[in-house]
C-alpha cells in the first residue's frame, strides 16, 4: 500500500533540505533533485489501479482532512511525476550553462511538484487552494528566473492574472463554506444535493469556474500564457505547458464539474463552446508567430481546447478522448519544449528565421522534434491521432457534428503550423540563415538527449494504451467521472 502523504512530504522536505546542504557541495542539488523526482515517479507508478482514502491524523472524513486517490488522481500523478523526472534530467546541463543558481532552481522546482501532487490528491477545498497556491507561487518565481527585463515583465503579468484567479477561487470557497458549513468536497456535494438550487450556487459556480479557467488559460483568460511560457527556462516551460495548467487548471475543473456540482446540459454546452473557441483562436494566433517557444505556447492553448471539448461532451467515450488527449499533450508538448530548449542551447536563438538544416548537425533533437510535431498534428501511428479521432467520433455520436467539423479544421491548421516549424528549423532554412554559425553546431550533451529519446518513444507507443482500456489506466478514470457525484460521496464519507 502506498502511503499518500509521501507524495507531498518528499518534495517539500527535499526542497527545504537542498539549500541547507548544498552551499559546500556543488553536486548535491543535481543528485538530490533527480533522485527525488525518480522516487516520486516509482511511487506514482505503484498507485496504478488502486483506490484509497487517507485520513490525516485519524479524523473521520467530514471533520478531518482527507487525501483521496482514485483513477483520475492516479492518472494526473503519473503525468506530473513522469514529466518532472524528464525535466530534472534535462536541466542538469541546461541550467549549468545558461543560469547561475542551481540550488534555488531545484528548490523552487520541487516546491512546484509538491504543490501539484497535493492539489491532485486533496479531498478538501481549502487544502486544494493552499496546495494550488504553493505550486503557483513557485511557478511565478520560476518564470522570472532569468531576471532579464522580458522575464520579469512576463512574471509580473502571470503573477497578477494568477493572483486574481486565486482570489476568485478563495471568494468562492468562502461562499461555499457560508452556504453549506463544510469544506470537504464530498460533504459539500452531499449538502448541495439536499438544499434547493438558488442564485448563490450559480454565482459560486461561475466564480470558481472563472478562477480555474484563468489558471488553465482558456481563451478569454489566456493572455498571460504566451508571455509566461516562453520566458521561463526550457525545462520549466515543459513543466508549465505540460503539467501545471493541467494539474491546477483542467484537473480541478473536471473534479468540481463532475464530482461537486454535478454535470448537466448547460455546463456541457458552456465547456464545449469555450473549448472550440480556444482551439480555433489559439491555433490561428500560433500561425502568426516566428518565435519558436511562443508558437508552442499558443499551440498549448489550442490543445487545451481539445481536452475541454472531450470533457464537456460528457459521454464516456468523450471523457476517454479528453483524458487521453490530456495525457498525450503532456508528453508531446513537453517533448517539443525540451527540443526548443536544446535548439536554443546550441544555436542561441529562438527565431525560426535564423535557424535551418538542423537535421545534419543535431540528429537526435531533429528526430524527436519530428516525433513531437507528427504526434501533435495527428499523423496515424502516433498518439495524438488516436485521441483526436476519439474526440471527433464522440462529438458525432453525441449529436454535435458541427463541433466535430471544427475539430477537423483545427487539426488541419495545427498540421500546417508544425509543417512551418519543420520547414524552417529542421529540413529547410530560414531567411536570415547564418552559415558560419551552423558550421560549428554540435549535438547536445547525453543527459539532455536521454529525456528526448524516452519521450519520443512514449509518443510513438502510447497509442497501445487504448487496447484493453477497461482494465488499463483509463478504465478507472471513466468510472470515477461517470459515477458522478453520488459515487464520490459514498466512497469518501462511506454512508
Amino acid at each position, binding site marked *: 500500500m502506498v502511503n499518500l502523504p509521501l507524495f507531498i512530504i518528499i518534495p517539500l522536505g527535499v526542497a527545504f533540505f537542498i539549500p541547507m546542504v548544498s552551499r559546500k557541495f556543488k553536486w548535491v542539488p543535481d543528485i538530490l533533485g533527480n533522485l527525488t523526482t525518480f522516487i516520486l515517479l516509482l511511487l506514482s507508478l505503484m498507485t496504478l489501479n488502486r483506490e484509497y482514502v487517507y485520513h490525516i491524523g485519524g479524523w473521520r472524513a467530514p471533520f478531518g482532512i482527507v487525501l483521496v486517490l482514485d483513477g483520475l488522481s492516479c492518472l494526473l500523478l503519473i503525468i506530473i511525476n513522469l514529466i518532472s523526472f524528464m525535466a530534472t534530467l534535462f536541466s542538469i546541463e541546461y541550467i549549468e550553462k545558461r543560469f547561475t543558481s542551481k540550488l534555488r532552481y531545484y528548490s523552487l522546482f520541487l516546491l512546484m511538484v509538491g504543490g501539484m501532487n497535493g492539489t491532485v490528491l486533496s479531498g478538501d477545498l481549502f487544502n486544494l487552494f493552499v496546495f494550488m497556491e504553493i505550486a503557483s507561487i513557485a511557478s511565478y518565481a520560476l518564470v522570472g528566473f532569468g531576471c532579464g527585463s522580458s522575464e520579469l515583465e512576463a512574471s509580473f503579468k502571470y503573477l497578477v492574472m494568477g493572483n486574481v484567479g486565486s482570489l476568485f477561487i*478563495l471568494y468562492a470557497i468562502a461562499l461555499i463554506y457560508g452556504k453549506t458549513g463544510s469544506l470537504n468536497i464530498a460533504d459539500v456535494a452531499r449538502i448541495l444535493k439536499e438544499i434547493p438550487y438558488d442564485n448563490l450556487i450559480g454565482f459560486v459556480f461561475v466564480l470558481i469556474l472563472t478562477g480555474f479557467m484563468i489558471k488553465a488559460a482558456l481563451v478569454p483568460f489566456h493572455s498571460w500564457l504566451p508571455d509566461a511560457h516562453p520566458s521561463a527556462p526550457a525545462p520549466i516551460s515543459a513543466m508549465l505547458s505540460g503539467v501545471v495548467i493541467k494539474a491546477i487548471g483542467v484537473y480541478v475543473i473536471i473534479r468540481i464539474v463532475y464530482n461537486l456540482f454535478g454535470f448537466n446540459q448547460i455546463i456541457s454546452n458552456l465547456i464545449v463552446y469555450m473549448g472550440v473557441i480556444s482551439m480555433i483562436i489559439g491555433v490561428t494566433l500560433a500561425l502568426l508567430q516566428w518565435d519558436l517557444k511562443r508558437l508552442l505556447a499558443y499551440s498549448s492553448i489550442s490543445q487545451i481546447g481539445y481536452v475541454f471539448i472531450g470533457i464537456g461532451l460528457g459521454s464516456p467515450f468523450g471523457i476517454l478522448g479528453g483524458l487521453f488527449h490530456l495525457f498525450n499533450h503532456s508528453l508531446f508538448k513537453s517533448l517539443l519544449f525540451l527540443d526548443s530548449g536544446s535548439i536554443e542551447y546550441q544555436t542561441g536563438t529562438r527565431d525560426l528565421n535564423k535557424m535551418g538544416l538542423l537535421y545534419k548537425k543535431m540528429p537526435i533533437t531533429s528526430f524527436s522534434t519530428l516525433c513531437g510535431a507528427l504526434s501533435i498534428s495527428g499523423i496515424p501511428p502516433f498518439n495524438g491521432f488516436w485521441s483526436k479521432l476519439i474526440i471527433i467520433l464522440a462529438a458525432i455520436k453525441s449529436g454535435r457534428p458541427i463541433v466535430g467539423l471544427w475539430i477537423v479544421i483545427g487539426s488541419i491548421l495545427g498540421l500546417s503550423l508544425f509543417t512551418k516549424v519543420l520547414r524552417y528549423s529542421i529540413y529547410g532554412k530560414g531567411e536570415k540563415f547564418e552559415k558560419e554559425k551552423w558550421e560549428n553546431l554540435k549535438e547536445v550533451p547525453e543527459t539532455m538527449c536521454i529525456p528526448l529519446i524516452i519521450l519520443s518513444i512514449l509518443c510513438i507507443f502510447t497509442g497501445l494504451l487504448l487496447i484493453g482500456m477497461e482494465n488499463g489506466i483509463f478504465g478507472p478514470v471513466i468510472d470515477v467521472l461517470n459515477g458522478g457525484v453520488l459515487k464520490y460521496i459514498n466512497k469518501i464519507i462511506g454512508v
Partner: protein
Amino acid sequence: MIYYLCFVLFLIGLYGVTCKKNIVKIILGLCIMEYSVNLFLILLGYRKNGIPPIINKGMEINEFYNKAVDPLPQALVLTSIVIGLGILSLMVAIAIRLYQRYGTFDITEMKKLKG
C-alpha cells in the same frame, strides 16, 4: 448587508487591478481584493456577544453551542494571510527589479513582449 459591502470592496480592488497603469497601484488593488476576501471569511464566523470556542470546566455544552463563534474561518484566514504575505513580497521584489530595468512604474511603457 455587510456581506454586500465586502463584495463592493472586492470589486474596488478588481477595478484597481484592471484599470490602473501604475504597478504600485495594481499591487494595492490586489491587496484590497485579498483583504476583502479575508474580511468576508471572518464575518462568516462572527456572532454577536460570542465567546471564544474553548470549553472550560463547568460549561454547559448547549450554552457553548449557542454562543461560541465558529473557529474554522479564523484558521482559514490565518493561512490565507500567510499566503498573501508570500505573494505580496514576491510582487514587490519583482516590481523593484522592473523599476531597475525600465526606470518607470508605468505598465504601458513595458512592452517588450508582443504578438
